[in-house]
């Protein structure tokens, strides 16, 4: 009987309970709250569900995920070496129609303007005492592009990965709440009522040359984001070629789903209490909101400039779509525009700045990598 008790005690002392900290408990609560947001509230559930579950898993003591070989170490390797974001972008490229952007290339400037949010957050972060690399990684939250944010965070500030990913995906799903008041504040009813001209049809030739040309221009100028832009545009080429449907289908289904499970679970695995439960995390959450708002403001204001410059042909509401968050931000433009004028259909026009914002954020990330790394 003695032996039984001794052995049972040994099992207990090897259990996670003995090393469990209050921080672990809080992080599990964070994970459960994120699960509630993802499943109960529908906030980016495909990403936040595995992130939240990974966060819970990360906070069990003595699992050896980081030290022992195993599936979790393989996933963490993929996280720490930016293997997953380019593969996500392969699928995203296969899902993206750049037609509206090609039809109206001026909307590229709206996608550029909305990146201002990135740098407002960067400046704010440095003023709050973050290092320049950390500030760059935090700023990219304003780009509203999950894979790019994770890609940059891993390269510049891996210690902040969890907070940055959670902030980015949370605010991306909050776009329908964050943007409309800002859009109302900075536009007049007359501007919101503007009905835009129908987009011209885009030829298959243009859709085929576009991804190749963008890859060449961006990759030559900013080598650090070649993997990201290259995969995005390779996926788009699979989509548009018309002869590689097998590869396009797999890119936007089996492959992106598998990689999403690994990327998101792995991101959650980085959210250990000791690195996440800091004052910095709260600052990052706040700076992320600032970044989103500033990006929206900048997009709308640049939309107003285009409204004036074109003599009222451009509805400034499509500017807010420049923050990316594809396709939610474009839908917000559509909804706000239709509320002002029921016969107003901005969706396709807003898709232009929306996908331009993806490229813009990748360019911003590339520039920061060139300057800061």
């Amino acid at each position, binding site marked *: 009987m003695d032996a039984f008790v001794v052995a049972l005690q040994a099992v207990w002392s090897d259990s996670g309970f003995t090393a469990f900290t209050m921080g672990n408990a809080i992080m599990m609560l964070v994970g459960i709250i994120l699960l509630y947001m993802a499943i109960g509230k529908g906030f980016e559930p495909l990403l936040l569900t595995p992130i939240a579950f990974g966060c819970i898993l990360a906070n069990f003591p003595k699992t050896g995920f980081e030290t022992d070989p195993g599936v979790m170490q393989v996933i963490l390797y993929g996280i720490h070496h930016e293997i997953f974001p380019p593969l996500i972008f392969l699928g995203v490229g296969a899902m993206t129609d750049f037609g509206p952007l090609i039809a109206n290339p001026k909307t590229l400037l709206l996608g550029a303007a909305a990146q201002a949010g990135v740098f*407002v957050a960067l400046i704010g972060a440095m003023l709050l005492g973050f290092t320049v690399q950390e500030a760059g990684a935090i700023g990219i939250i304003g780009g509203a592009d999950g894979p790019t944010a994770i890609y940059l965070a891993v390269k510049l500030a891996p210690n902040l990965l969890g907070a940055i990913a959670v902030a980015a995906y949370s605010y991306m799903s909050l776009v329908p709440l964050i943007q409309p008041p800002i859009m109302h504040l900075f536009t007049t009813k007359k501007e919101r009522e503007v009905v835009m001209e129908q987009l011209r049809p885009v030829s298959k030739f243009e859709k085929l040359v576009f991804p190749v040309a963008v890859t060449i221009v961006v990759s030559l100028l900013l080598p650090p984001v070649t993997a990201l832009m290259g995969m995005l545009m390779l996926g788009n080429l699979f989509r548009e070629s018309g002869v590689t449907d097998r590869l396009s289908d797999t890119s936007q289904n089996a492959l992106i789903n598998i990689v999403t499970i690994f990327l998101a679970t792995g991101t959650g695995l980085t959210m250990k209490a000791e690195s996440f439960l800091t004052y910095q995390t709260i600052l990052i959450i706040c700076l992320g909101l600032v970044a989103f708002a500033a990006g929206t403001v900048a997009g709308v204001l640049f939309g107003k400039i285009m409204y004036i410059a074109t003599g009222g042909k451009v509805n400034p509401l499509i500017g807010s779509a420049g923050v990316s968050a594809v396709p939610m931000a474009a839908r917000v433009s559509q909804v706000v525009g239709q509320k002002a004028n029921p016969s107003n259909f901005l969706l396709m026009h807003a898709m232009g700045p929306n996908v331009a914002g993806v490229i813009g954020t990748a360019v911003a990330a590339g520039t920061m990598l*060139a300057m*800061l790394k």
Partner: protein
Amino acid sequence: MGQPITTNPWLIALINMSVVFGVLGALGLVIGAIRMIDPTQKKTAKVESKVEAPATAPVAAVAVQSNDDVIAVIAAAIASYGYSFSQIACIRRVSGGEGWAQAARVEAVTVRNQMF
């Protein structure tokens, strides 16, 4: 690399925004250039505008009179054409003679799933 080029946040922001506007502006010029060299452009402009509009029409634009029953009937009819409801952006009243033009404008957004 190794060393940051600068740690002045204002300078970083300024340079970055310059690069972003510069690159995206350049891409705008590239798009214009692609269109100019496009050997298929001439015929495309004519053919597509004629062919594509009717193709999307039965999905996107169906005359409705703000009547729930009618919407249900239309939904069923569309479904029988093999379209899933998630592909339908909206069903709305079509006024006047600009039906096809508007139809193209509302074109069902299949752009990227709601994933990222």
